[in-house]
Structure formats: C-alpha cells, structure tokens
C-alpha cells in the first residue's frame, strides 16, 4: 500500500468514463449563450441539468448590479470577514434575507456547502446529537463529521422512523438537531414537513430545513417548503444557497434564535474562508426581489416540470416519486447511465450523471433540472431525446 494506492480503482473507473470523449464529471462548457443553452463538444445544447430554476443568471438587473459592484468595489474581498471586515453588501444582503424570512438574523456564507458545514459544526459539538434524513446532501454529512457530535440517521422521509430514533435518545432528544431538506436533490421529492415538525415538537428538538433546491421554487414568495407548508415559524434554522434559484454563488442561514450570531466567532467554515466577492453579493441582492415577486416564473417552472415529468413517465421511465423541478431517471447500471448521458448529449441535451453511492437505492441517475427559462420547444426537445433513447433503459 502506498499513499496513492487508494486511487487505483478510481483510475480504472475514470478510464471507462473517458471513453465518452471527456470526463462527464467535468464536462467542458465551451460557451454559454443563455440560462438554458450552451456549446458543448462543438454543438449547441439545451442545458437541462444546471439547477438554474428561475433562469436568473442572465437577468439584466443582476448583470447590471454585478457590473456596478465590480467597478465600484473591485474583484474580491481578499479574505475573511473576521480579518478583512464586512462589506456594506454583505450586511445589506443579510438584512434583506432576514426581512425575506421575517426573522431576527441571517449569516451569509461563501457557498451553500459551507453554509451547512458552518451551521452544523457551529451549532453542535462532541456530546451533542444530530439526527439527519438518510438522503441528506453530502454537505450535511460533512458538517456532521466536522462537528464531532453523535450522528443518527433516520429513514428517508419517514417521520415515524424519526420519532422512533428520537425516542431512543431519551433526554438527549430535547437538544437534538434534526436536519431535513425542502426538496431532496437526487430524486426531487419534498420532505413531509408537517409530520416532521410534529415529531420534533413532541421531543422538543431543533429543526434545520435546507431549502437549497426549494428556495424560489416553492411558496407564494419563494421562501421554500417552509412557506408552502406554512411552517416557517416552526423551523428553527433555514439554510439555503444562492447558486440555484438566485443564479450566483454563496449560502445563508436565517433564524430567530439569537445564538445564530455566535457562529460568526465560532464556526470555522465562516471564520477561516474568504467572504463572497462584491459582484456576487450585488447580483444576489438584485435577484432576491425577482425571486420574491417571481410567481410568474414559478408558474412557468412548474408547468415545465410537470410536462417533463409526465412525458418521461408516459415513456415508462422509472422516476422519482412526485412531479418536481428535479426529474431523475433511475437506471440499473453505471454503463447504462453513461451511455444514456452520452446519447442525450449527442441529441443536444445536457443533464447530470450521478453514480452510487451518492444515489438512493444504489441506482445510477441521469438527472434533469427544469428552469422557468426553458421554452416549450426546449422541453419538447428534451422529451424527444429521451424518447429516442428509450431502448437504452431496458
């Protein structure tokens, strides 16, 4: 065994991946034309795997705000907020997110991944207990590892199972941090939030809802699942990302618990990393009101999602359990999924390829994400490509 022996099997797997001409886990995007179109492998393709739910990446308001911030404040902050200070935009965005969620305070982080790392490892430590849905995102698992707390999983979207596991914890349950997601990233299913809230209340636990894939997508003003279900006040911490519906990069946590602000001093993923650059903050701030007032975008988004989901379902594909803005086709083997992914690209459609163990049920996925910016013709083109490749799923 050498230092590098651990990469032997990965090297073999990568050889198979590269047989398609380039690495599907680092697809070269040669040019970007719009939120839904780019040039890949020399051809113009429909982007159907970029989580650009509201299609705001080319919004004139966001572009203008980013350009102005770039000219006025420069390209970067060159360090952490603890060392280099908080720019006016950082503070303003935190205030605006607090108003958006009607809560006491918000902290902005440099990425959504770091938001989960910072919140989980900041709120908990060795001796505490975190109870997470089994299908939670890797950032949640990594945050748990960083915290040193005891971590218990419960079966995906199963409030009864959560209840059973909290019960086993006895007195520790009342200080447990329960983690769920608004929409789960792999299969696009929502958490049964009302039942989860009922369970966490019965045990006196704390609830974190990660709205990464549901911000801008669910609720009258796009707050996420907490708004759609009317459970904002029952959710202790809301975590989310700017890199999907808000079209930039970064993350946040909003809460009424005054203790959230202590994370600015104790949470290493906040303290020891560079803060978001001014242009990123500016475009995010410009996108937030568009998201809040974007019911027309949400309506279009869900019309597109429903059309894609129903079309693929009618074609006999095995999909996630409900109509969603994430539409994942489940396939039995990696080889099948890789051939499928390459076939879609040849037909002018870019989606995501996901392999186990990152997937539920040990399935391989070709995963689409729908955008409000997709035209009817583009959604039809995606459906047509899946129709042409149907034989590969047998």
């Amino acid at each position, binding site marked *: 065994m050498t230092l590098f022996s651990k990469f032997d099997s990965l090297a073999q797997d990568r050889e198979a991946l590269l047989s398609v001409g380039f690495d599907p886990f680092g697809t070269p995007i040669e040019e970007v034309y719009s939120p839904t179109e780019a040039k890949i492998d020399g051809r113009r393709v429909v982007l159907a795997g970029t989580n650009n739910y509201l299609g705001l990446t080319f919004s004139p308001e966001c572009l203008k705000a980013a350009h102005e911030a770039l000219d006025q404040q420069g390209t970067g902050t060159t360090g952490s907020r603890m060392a280099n200070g908080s720019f006016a935009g950082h503070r303003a965005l935190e205030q605006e997110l607090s108003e958006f969620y009607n809560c006491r305070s918000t902290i902005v982080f440099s990425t959504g991944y770091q938001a989960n790392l910072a919140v989980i490892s900041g709120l908990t430590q060795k001796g505490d207990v975190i109870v997470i849905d*089994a299908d939670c995102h890797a950032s949640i698992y990594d945050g748990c590892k960083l915290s040193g707390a005891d*971590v*218990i*999983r419960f079966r995906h979207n199963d409030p009864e199972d959560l209840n059973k*596991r909290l019960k*086993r*914890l006895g007195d520790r349950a009342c200080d447990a941090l329960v983690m769920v997601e608004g929409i789960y990233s792999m299969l696009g299913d929502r958490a049964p939030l009302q039942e989860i809230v009922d369970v966490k209340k019965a045990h006196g636990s704390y609830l974190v809802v990660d709205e990464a894939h549901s911000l801008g997508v669910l609720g009258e003003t796009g707050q996420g699942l907490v708004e759609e279900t009317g459970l904002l006040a029952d959710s202790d911490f809301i975590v989310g990302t700017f890199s999907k519906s808000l079209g930039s990069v970064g993350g946040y946590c909003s809460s009424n618990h005054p203790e959230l602000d202590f994370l600015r001093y104790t949470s290493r993923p906040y303290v020891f990393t560079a803060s978001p650059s001014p242009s990123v903050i500016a475009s995010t701030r410009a996108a937030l009101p568009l998201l809040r007032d974007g019911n027309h975008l949400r309506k279009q988004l869900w019309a597109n999602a429903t059309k894609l989901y129903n079309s693929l379902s009618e074609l006999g594909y095995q999909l996630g359990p409900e109509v969603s803005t994430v539409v994942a086709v489940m396939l039995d083997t990696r080889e099948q999924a890789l051939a499928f992914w390459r076939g879609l690209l040849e037909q002018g459609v870019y989606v995501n390829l996901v392999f186990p*163990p990152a997937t539920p049920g*040990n399935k391989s996925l070709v995963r689409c994400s729908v955008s409000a910016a997709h035209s009817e013709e583009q959604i039809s083109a995606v459906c047509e490509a899946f129709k042409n490749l149907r034989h590969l799923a047998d």
Partner: protein
Amino acid sequence: MTAEYNEVLERLGKQLEIIAGDKIKFDESTDLVEGLGLDSFKVLDLLLEVEDEFDISVPMNVLTDVRTVKDMAQRIHELGPKSA
C-alpha cells in the same frame, strides 16, 4: 466471550445477510468493506438495521473504529442491546 456477546454476534450475522446477501460467508474477522463488499452507504444502512434489531442508538461516528464484524459486535454489546 459471554453468552450475551455471542447472542449479539448471531443477531448481527442475520442483519449482515440481509444487507450483503445470504451467500456471502463471513466470520468475526471479516472486514465489512473489503470482505463483504459493503460501500460506505451500505454500512450506514446496516447501522439503521442494527439500531432497530437491538433497539439502541448507534451514532455514525462509531464507524470510525469499526472495520470488522467483531468490531461492530463489540460496539453493539457495549451499547447495551435489548433482548430479541
């Protein structure tokens, strides 16, 4: 080994058969990953089954020190499993 430990081992073996398949042969020294071919998420799923079988909480963190069937059985034994 005590009778209680042997009972844990026997019940754990049944859970391993559910996760890894009943054709796989194993003993106390079998490595969960290399010997039984369990990937990281299958080991976590095994933990869910173990918690229910023994009616105990087994934090994921204990896996840091668990490599073999014996390691897992010992952790369960230490956590005070309930009788079947």
